């Protein structure tokens, strides 16, 4: 099947250029923006909305939620999952994956994330409605994961959101981000302002062992570090980091929750140097983005990675029962 579209609009490397939200979805756009600012983002590519659209039209999936009823949804999702990929698309994904794997320094796994176009704007949040699949280690699993992300566009919740959002939100299109999975030794969240007083001269870092979900979901009491206007650590409060989320050791599972050995619960998760490094990076990102930012990242194999950045919004900040895992 030949595409009438320029191949460069099908697979975009997010760490090489700034990409448009309409093509790569919110998550993809955010990542490419971070990369363009010089933040250390793990390597990633996006399968654009056009890939989805080509595939969807080839198997006659409707474009809009208003065109289907709830009863149609399971059938639609089934078709997306089961229909074979056109060889050209399969080749595209395989070649992208191989390039990614070839350049990998950090781990041998990738994470696959839905990146919807209507997500993560300041007004509304579709965050948590679409899928994330972690710890993908081969092409077959990757293809399955991509289809799972495409199918999530047609989950009951996603469809009802699109219907509620009115006509503008109803254009069904989804990008997929495939990113090097960072095996976080330590995960952190930085607020480039005091979360209570909103004082922008102060940074607050929370950090804990393993993948970021433990910090983000409130699973543990993380370490809390305060960085002052000069970039120095003024306070390091050690939290009781009694649990951590780490990659599962069985294929097919994503992650597991394990206890942290006693010896490490009260050990600081970050050195002062690491905390200051995080502070500098976060400040640079926030000032270039032009807003007070909530930035997630990790330290893996001694290197600092930035995974996500968004405006500090206490209302739209996802917590608790999110489907998404940001790690």
């Amino acid at each position, binding site marked *: 099947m030949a595409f009438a579209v320029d191949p460069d609009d099908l697979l975009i490397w997010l760490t090489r250029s700034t990409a448009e939200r309409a093509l790569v979805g919110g998550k993809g756009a955010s990542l490419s923006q971070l990369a363009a600012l010089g933040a250390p983002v793990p390597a990633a590519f996006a399968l654009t909305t056009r890939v989805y659209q080509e595939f969807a039209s080839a198997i006659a999936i409707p474009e809009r939620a208003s065109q289907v009823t709830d009863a149609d949804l399971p059938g639609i999702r089934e078709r997306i999952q089961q229909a074979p990929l056109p060889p050209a698309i399969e080749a595209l994904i395989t070649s992208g994956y191989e390039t990614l794997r070839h350049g990998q320094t950090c781990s041998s796994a990738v994470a696959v994330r839905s990146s919807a176009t209507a997500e993560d704007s300041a007004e509304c949040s579709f965050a948590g409605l679409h899928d994330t699949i972690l710890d993908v280690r081969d092409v077959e699993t990757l293809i399955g994961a991509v289809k799972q992300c495409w199918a999530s566009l047609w989950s009951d919740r996603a469809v009802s959101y699109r219907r509620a959002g009115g006509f503008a939100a109803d254009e069904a299109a989804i990008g997929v981000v495939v990113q090097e999975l960072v*095996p*976080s*030794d*330590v995960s952190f969240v930085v607020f480039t302002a005091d979360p209570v007083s909103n004082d922008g001269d102060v940074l607050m870092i929370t950090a804990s*062992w*393993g993948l970021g979900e433990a910090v983000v979901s409130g699973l543990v009491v993380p370490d809390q570090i305060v960085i002052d206007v000069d970039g120095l650590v003024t306070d390091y409060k050690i939290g009781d980091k009694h649990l*951590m989320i*780490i*990659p*599962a*050791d069985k294929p097919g599972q994503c992650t597991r929750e*394990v*206890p*942290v*050995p*006693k*010896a*490490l619960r009260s*050990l600081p*998760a970050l050195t002062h140097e690491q905390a200051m490094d995080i502070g500098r990076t976060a400040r640079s990102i926030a000032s270039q983005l032009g807003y007070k930012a909530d930035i997630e990242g990790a330290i893996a*194999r*001694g290197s600092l990675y930035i995974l996500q950045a968004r405006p500090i919004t206490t209302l739209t900040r996802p917590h608790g029962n999110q489907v998404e895992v940001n790690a």
Partner: protein
Amino acid sequence: MVIEMENETKAFPEAWEKPAHLSGTFHQDAMHFPNPLSPLANSSLNPAFAVGLPTAAQELNAPMANAHIFACNWYRFEQFDRAEPKSEAEARAFHEQAEATMKVELGRLGERWHQEHLPAIRAILSRLAEAEGEIQRASAAQIVAIIDEAEAAHRELWTIHFRIAFPMLLGMQLFDEFYQEVFGGTDGDSHVLLLGVESESMKAAIGLSDLANSARDLDLEPALRENPADQLLSILGATEPGRKFLVALDAYLDEYGYRQDLFDMASPTWREDRTIPLANIRNYLVTGREARAEYESRKQSAEAATKAAREQLASYPEAIRGQFEGMLGIARVGSFLQEEHNFYIDQQGLARLHDLYLSIGRRLVQEGVLAEADDVFMLLVDELRNLFANPDAMAQTDFVRALVQRRHEEMEIAKTLTPPPFLGDPPQEPPAGDPMVRAMGRFFGGPPLQSAASDQLQGNPGSRGTVSGKARVARTLDEAMNLQPGEILVAVTTMPPWTPLFGIAAAVVTETGGPLSHCAIVAREYGIPAVVGAHGATSRIATGQTISVDGGTGVVTLHE
């Protein structure tokens, strides 16, 4: 820091009492000292301990407030109490200091052994050997000086012993706790990673096994297996291959023969009484076991288990992986030192002291004071010293011989007694918040456990596995030598000289010890079930009785 060594002989029949001016709890360490100690051993070992342990503890910032050892009916009772902090703040400060010191010591465990402790021990052993050679020609005054030197050397040996023992035990305890936190499971699992460490004890066992092989090659197997131990020397000396074998045996004993049965300076060494190593060699022939092959197999088990653990940890944060490797390294050094320190200090140190004092005994036979050289062990160090310091004392041969006679009689009576586990105030449960305290608990085994059933004994799990068989109850190493392949060894305690028996026994049950005790560790090395700390085992079980042992639960079931 107060140090005292009390030595009192009570009027027999027994009265079990502590000295009136001492208070608190005094323990009878049945694991190391199930038998009464000879007067010389008591009067030499006890002060050495009472100096050595507190000195080492002080250096580790865990000072002792009380360190007393006394003998009652020639059984040793000891008290080692940590200093009590006066306030919460002081307690925290103590704890932090001790922790910080221990952390450094754990990191230096191997380095200190090789650079400091082993050279010091070797120098002491070498000097003791040298001094022994001087006894024959020394003047009385010189012998007094040698006795003082020997006693100082003894104190130093035990100080070194405890400098090693505390961090060694703690290192293994911390690794075990960490391992269980991360991987779950039970005690047995973490120790697999520590198997197969090469040590002098291991080389000694391999040397013995090799001697068994050469005996087989020389066609001596029937002779060794079919004759009682006390006739073997004359039988072997009567043939050419037998004599060849004895030469090889003596060469082996020159290196590995400085060891005795349990901790009594009075016990003959393997070099003196070759029926002991010969009985061990016979055991190797009877079972056909190969020490070298078993050692290699243990090494492989450790390597496989370590690899598996590392694979499981691959998805863990670097901090946990780093901690694991660090703790594993330290625990392996600990496992090595557990055998090594015992070989050099507990075995060779005491054997050299034995030889030295036995030489003095021979000198006293020459002087007409003693009837037999080993009567010297019936005297206290001070009494012995006085004989050489004071010509008048030396002249009173009748008095000395009567004293020796009386002491022999007391020892014979003492051997029939069962000492109480403590004297003075009843023991208190120590706080378990301190890992060092937990380590000691798992080494010594804690208070007696109760079993629900009347036909069962409850002990501590020592080594996993279940087996049923005929019991062989042995209170001494001599008795244990009767152990037949497939029998279950039931003893009060098993210290390193008993190790070769683990190759024959189907399982081991001891009355003393916990999962970190020597018996448990060796049983795991040999892959046989063991229950340790089963109080009353040697009284309730009879030789020949069928028993079942479950090393995983610590339950011993008595049949018939």
